[in-house]
């Protein structure tokens, strides 16, 4: 049940921004991997064609938005004879459950994969409490 409410949340965030776009370009939902360990939350997103200049990561309230523009691919005197993928921009938003230390967020793009490291805020990190005998 928790899973469903989470995906509902992310859908809401999605719709709000996709509704109005001035640029007439196709927008794709990048495939993502999301992992978590004790200290950080890691997001990997496939955004082929995007580079460090075109990717935009923002965190507002607890909605993390990733966006990227990719260049159109066309060649002079060549006709597109067969297509299996479309080229467009990328957009996806997530509602974060965890409290993130927003000053320490790191994002990097390599080979068309966006990698975001979101360090958890000190307050929410698991702490082990020593138990005294006495």
């Amino acid at each position, binding site marked *: 049940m928790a899973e*469903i409410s989470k*995906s*509902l949340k992310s*859908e809401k965030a*999605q719709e709000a921004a996709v509704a109005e776009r001035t640029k007439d370009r196709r927008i*794709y*939902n*990048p*495939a*993502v*991997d*999301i*992992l*978590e*360990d*004790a200290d950080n939350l890691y997001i*990997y997103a*496939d*955004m*082929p*064609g*995007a*580079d460090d200049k075109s990717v935009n990561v923002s965190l507002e309230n607890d909605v993390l938005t990733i966006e990227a523009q*990719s260049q159109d*691919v*066309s*060649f002079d*005197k*060549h*006709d*597109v*004879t*067969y*297509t*299996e*993928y*479309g080229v467009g921009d990328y957009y996806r938003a997530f509602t974060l459950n965890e409290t993130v230390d927003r000053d320490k967020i790191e994002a990097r*793009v*390599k*080979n*068309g*994969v966006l990698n975001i490291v979101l360090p958890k805020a000190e307050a929410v990190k698991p702490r082990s409490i020593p138990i005294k005998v006495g």
Partner: protein
Amino acid sequence: MITIERPFFRWDPWREMDRLQREMTGVFNLPRRRAAVFPPLNIHTGDDDVIITSEIPGIDPADVELTVTGDTLTIKGLRKEHETKEGETWHRRERGSGNFYRTVQLPYNVDGNKVQADYVNGVLKIVLPRAEADKPRKISVTSGK
């Protein structure tokens, strides 16, 4: 609506719940950009060469092997799996990994020695020049006598 009685299948509440669950997941899943094949290719054909672009994000170009024979191109490669470290838990796993293999038939024979490939921002671009012997030739017609 026509209902057909199927004597072999009794109404199964578990199956019904399974179906319902599948329908619900369909509602919550957003449209994803996922081709049925990996890696997806686009082919741009010119008079003198074919350019193939393919989206293969997050690989090491050294892990891709291209072979050309006549008018057939083979793309072989590996997209490494994320090594789950201790204490890591997955929230979502949508990006695929593993070995991939594709064979494409090109519109004409290409010169295997002149094929060039580069990998930029997760997009592989292969330029395959048409073989000299395969190029169309203009034959001028001379009048006899």
